[in-house]
């Protein structure tokens, strides 16, 4: 086929990752950047860089017409949205399609189904994947009845509209009245719909997710699971593959749930099916599907040997999957640490600035996905991720040990990083034993165990 060209509509390490995968496929890349990102590593690596607009994401990375115009004017066949920004936007996927551009991601219909919590849950239920006890409520009486059914504690939040906005934890029945009324009026004013979602709250849950990949011809695969329980306010800090929390039965169950969702949707592209796992009760509940490449995809690549971004690009161009389920064999263990420009001594406050020193040590079995270089001005406008340190070992212990070695030997100056926190975490018994649950780190911060 003739030379293809892909427009990369993202920044940071994932832009570098996509460009690198395209280079190996012999595909040219046009990188769209904001005015603040003209000197990035991705800008140096791309075949060509065009400046989309100002530093604010709305003028650049979220500016749909501008991105499509730039992609068409530079004769690109496809747009890679990376993660975040426009990667899950059904309207953008549709705009690309209307203009003859391939959107490297799920279909607009799939993005719509998965983008809304209620429809995503309904879909999971329709293919017999368990969802956490809960549901939408229109009135306080409905809420009271449902709350009695699912039990306390529970979470109360707006049914429409994303993120953790207006989410409230209700410990006792006495508190439901007020929490529900506030959530409902907030939901009505913010999203124009006062429907409130009630959901059982699991205090000691692990976050486990399954990587899926589908082509346009109905082919679907699962590439094993990742565990990402170590989080700070829903921001993942350490991810690993496989999960050491699952027994073989639960693992098989989890994988089959993910495949049911992928097959049910005839899912196209890379995706991640997220679950909550209650270790004590051995309950598995569907959480959501992230229809895009995931930040932590390299741990899956490390244990499966599959270049996920390469496969994602190929299936987007209509190629059938080259792998079958039996080709997916896991080997060893991989851990990813997210090095960020955040100060652990100051509540993980972002600390952008000039990177005056950047010297990661070459260590066997460690991969660095990063856009850092010495002299880079880390801008204050976007997320704080500096690098993903992915350590591979024959077992979990070996992987953790290499991860420690990598963090210890990193020399970085300029922005204040979370490296001290990463070191403390890797040395902590709860991390070594993998007894951490999703709220663990926040509790530790509250108790001032860290930093």
């Amino acid at each position, binding site marked *: 086929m003739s030379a293809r060209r892909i427009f990369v509509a993202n920044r940071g390490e994932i832009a570098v990752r996509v460009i690198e995968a395209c280079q190996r496929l012999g595909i040219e890349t046009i990188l769209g950047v904001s*005015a603040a990102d003209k000197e990035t590593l991705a800008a140096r690596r791309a075949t060509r860089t*065009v*400046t*989309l*607009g*100002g530093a604010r994401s709305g*003028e*650049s990375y979220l500016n749909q*017409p*501008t991105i*499509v*115009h*730039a992609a068409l*004017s*530079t004769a690109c066949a496809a747009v890679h949205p990376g993660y975040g920004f426009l990667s899950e936007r059904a309207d953008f996927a549709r705009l690309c399609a209307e203009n003859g551009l391939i959107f490297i991601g799920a279909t607009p219909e799939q993005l719509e189904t998965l983008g809304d919590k209620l429809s995503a849950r309904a879909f999971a239920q329709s293919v017999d994947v368990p969802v956490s006890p809960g549901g939408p409520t229109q009135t306080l009486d409905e809420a009271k009845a449902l709350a009695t059914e699912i039990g306390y504690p529970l979470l109360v939040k707006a049914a429409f509209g994303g993120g953790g906005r207006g989410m409230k934890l209700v410990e006792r029945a006495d508190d439901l009245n007020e929490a529900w009324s506030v959530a409902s009026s907030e939901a009505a004013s913010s999203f124009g719909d006062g429907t409130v979602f009630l959901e059982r709250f699991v205090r000691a849950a692990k976050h486990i997710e399954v990587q899926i990949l589908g082509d346009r011809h109905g082919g679907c695969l699962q590439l094993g699971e990742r565990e990402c329980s170590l989080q700070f306010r829903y921001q993942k800090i350490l991810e690993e593959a496989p999960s050491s929390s699952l027994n073989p039965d639960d693992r098989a169950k989890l994988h089959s749930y993910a495949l049911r969702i992928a097959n049910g949707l005839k899912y196209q592209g890379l995706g991640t099916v997220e679950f909550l796992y209650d270790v004590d009760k051995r309950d598995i509940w569907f959480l959501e599907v992230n229809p895009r490449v995931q930040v932590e995809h390299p741990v899956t690549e490390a244990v499966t040997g599959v270049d996920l971004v390469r496969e994602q690009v190929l299936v987007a161009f209509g190629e059938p999957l080259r792998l079958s389920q039996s080709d997916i064999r896991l080997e060893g263990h991989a851990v990813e640490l997210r090095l960020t420009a955040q100060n652990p001594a100051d509540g993980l406050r972002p600390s952008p600035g000039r990177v005056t020193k950047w010297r990661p040590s070459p260590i066997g079995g460690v991969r660095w996905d990063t856009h850092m270089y010495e002299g880079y001005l880390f801008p204050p406008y976007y997320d704080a991720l500096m690098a993903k340190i992915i350590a591979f070992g024959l077992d979990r212990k070996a992987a953790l040990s290499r991860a420690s070695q990598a963090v210890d030997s990193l020399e970085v100056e300029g922005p204040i990083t979370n490296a001290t926190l990463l070191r403390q975490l890797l040395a902590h018994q709860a991390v070594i034993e993998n007894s951490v649950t999703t709220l663990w780190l926040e509790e530790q911060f509250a108790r001032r165990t860290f930093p």
Partner: protein
Amino acid sequence: MTALNIDLEELAAIIRLIKEAEFSEFRYAKGDVSLLVRRGELPADGGGGEATTAAALAPHPTPKVVPAAASQPSAPSPRGRGSESALQGSSSSVTAPLLGSFYGAPKPGDPPFVSVGDRVEADTVVCIIEVMKLMNSVVAGVAGVIAAVHVSDGELVEYGQSLFTIQPVQPA
């Protein structure tokens, strides 16, 4: 009141004088008449010194021969006599406020909004940038003379890219 009692030959002689000397600004006052000739810094697109002098004069189609009204004598003083004040009009760039396709004329076949040598005001539309069929007018942003056009019709221009060079002048 006689507006001009300086003849064209005298004016030409004066300009020749300035051209040869390294002056960038020349003021002359005699009785009712004061004369200001300024040499700007326009890039000499067309070639040599002659073009430069002509371009510098172009902003003032009426020779800067002004009857010395009451206000006039005071004008030179705040500006001083130093040559740096005369160079105040360093060229300025009109940059693309957004990424899109550049169009120099309202529609194909029409004469362009502006060409080199045209006088523009800050609010003069100089081009259109099209993003997904949406036309966005771009204004000069500064009063002056178009000294250069850097892009051609239909070209993709990026955010912040230089589109025109304008030699600023005092508002008419």
